[in-house]
C-alpha cells in the first residue's frame, strides 16, 4: 500500500491504496463519485479528468503515477453551488440525458475551451472524439458548447497548471 498527496479540486488530500489501483477508483473512493466508469479501457471517456491540466482517462492511470499532481473532476467545475456557464449551457440545450457520459463530456469540453475559447464545429468534434454518449446523440452536446460561443461567454480555466 502507498499513500500519496494530490490536489483534488483545489483541496490537498491524501490518497491511500495499492500502487496499481486505478486513479478512477481512488477518486471515487474519496466520495467524489461524479467521475464515472464506462468501458474501463480508454475508449469511452466517462472517466475523463484533468491531470495537471491535461485531459486523461482516469481508468488508465495507476495511483502510483500521480504523486503531487493536480486533479480536476466534474465536482471542481461549479463555482460554489452555482453551475458554471458550461454546465448551464448543457442544461439549457439538453446536453445530458441519463448523465453517465456528462461528467466526462464536461471535462473534455473544459479542456477544449481552454485551448480554443471559441471552437469551430470541427474542433469540438475532435475535442470530444474520445467521449461517447449513448443517449442524446452527440448533436445536443455539440450544441451545448456552440451555444456558449453565441452568448460570447468565454470559458474561464479552472486549473492553475493550464
Amino acid at each position: 500500500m502507498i499513500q500519496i498527496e494530490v490536489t483534488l479540486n483545489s483541496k490537498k488530500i491524501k490518497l491511500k491504496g495499492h500502487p496499481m489501483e486505478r486513479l478512477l477508483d481512488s477518486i471515487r473512493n474519496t466520495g467524489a463519485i461524479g467521475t464515472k466508469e464506462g468501458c474501463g479501457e480508454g475508449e469511452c471517456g466517462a472517466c475523463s479528468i484533468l491531470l495537471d491540466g491535461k485531459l486523461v482517462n482516469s481508468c488508465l492511470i495507476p495511483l502510483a503515477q500521480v504523486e503531487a499532481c493536480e486533479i480536476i473532476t466534474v465536482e471542481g467545475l461549479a463555482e460554489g453551488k452555482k453551475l458554471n456557464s458550461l454546465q448551464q449551457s448543457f442544461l439549457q440545450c439538453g446536453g445530458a440525458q441519463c448523465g453517465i457520459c456528462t461528467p466526462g463530456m464536461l471535462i473534455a469540453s473544459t479542456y477544449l475551451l481552454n485551448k480554443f475559447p471559441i471552437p469551430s464545429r470541427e474542433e469540438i468534434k475532435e475535442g470530444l472524439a474520445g467521449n461517447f454518449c449513448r443517449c442524446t446523440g452527440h448533436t445536443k452536446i455539440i450544441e451545448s458548447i456552440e451555444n456558449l460561443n453565441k452568448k460570447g461567454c468565454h470559458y474561464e480555466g479552472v486549473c492553475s497548471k493550464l
Partner: protein
Amino acid sequence: MKAYVPNYNLICPTNLNQALNILSEKKVKLFAGGTDLMVLFETGKLTEGEYLSLHAISELKGISENNNEILIGSLTTYNEIKESLIIQNNFPLLISAAKVTGAIAIQNRGTIGGNIANASPAADTPPALLCYEAKITVKNKKEERKIDLSKFYLDYKKLDLAPNEIITCIHLPKKKIEGNEYSFYHKVGTREGQAISKVCFSLRVIIKNKIINYFKLGLGSVSPTTILAIQTEKLMAGEMLTKVLIKKAQNEILKDISPIDDIRSSAKYRKKITQNLIGHYLELILKENSYK
C-alpha cells in the same frame, strides 16, 4: 475489473540510473503511459508482478536537436510531438501519425517509446518513423546501443530488446536529399482516431528531374510487424516515375507484405487496399510532376 490489484506492484524511480539499477537487479517490466498495459490490466491479461514506471524520469522526456539529428525522448507523448515546431517543420508524417493515434486523452498519455516497444503490427507511429530512417537508443546499466528501427522488429511481438534494457531515445536524421519531397500518411480504419488500423500507409518520395531520388514506404497491419517495403523501394529508387512503373509497384508490393485475416479485416482486402493506396498516391505525384 478482472485483475486482482494487490498482486501487482509499480515502482517509480525518479532518474534513469536508478531505473537501470533496479532493472539490473530484479525482474521488473517497464510501464510508461500505461495506455496499452492498463487495457490488459482491466481485462485480466496483464502478467502479475512488479512493474517499473518510467513516468517520473525527466531524462526520457522532450524533444531536442544536435547538428545531425532530432532526438525524441522515449517518454514523449503524442501531444508533445504534435505541438513540436521542429517535428512539424521536418517530419510531417510523424505529425500525421500522432494526430490519428487515439483521441486527445490517449494522445496526452500515450508515449512514442511505448508505441514502438508494444510491438503491435498495427502501431501507427513506426510506419512514419521508418520513412525517416529512425534509429533508437537502448540502454542497460552497463552499455548503450544505437540501432536502426527497421532492424528492431524481429518477428511478431519479438524485439531486439533485452529485459534489462530501456528505449531511451528516438533519433531522426536531418538528412537533406535533393528534390521535391512528397509525403502521404493514410490510416484505414473504422474510425480514424480510436480504431486500430486495418492498414496504415506512410509514403515518402523525393523526386528530382522526374527521377525518384528517394523512396520509403512504411506499412502497418499487413505483416507480423510494422515494415518498410524494401522490394518496392528497390524497384522504384533511381527510376523515372511513369504510369507503367506505378503498375509495377502495385504488383511488387505483394512481395513485401503478408497480411492475415482477423476480426478487423481480411488478407484480401488488405492487399487490395495497399495496392490502391500506392496507385493513388503515386498518381498524385506523377500528376504534379508532369507539369514541370
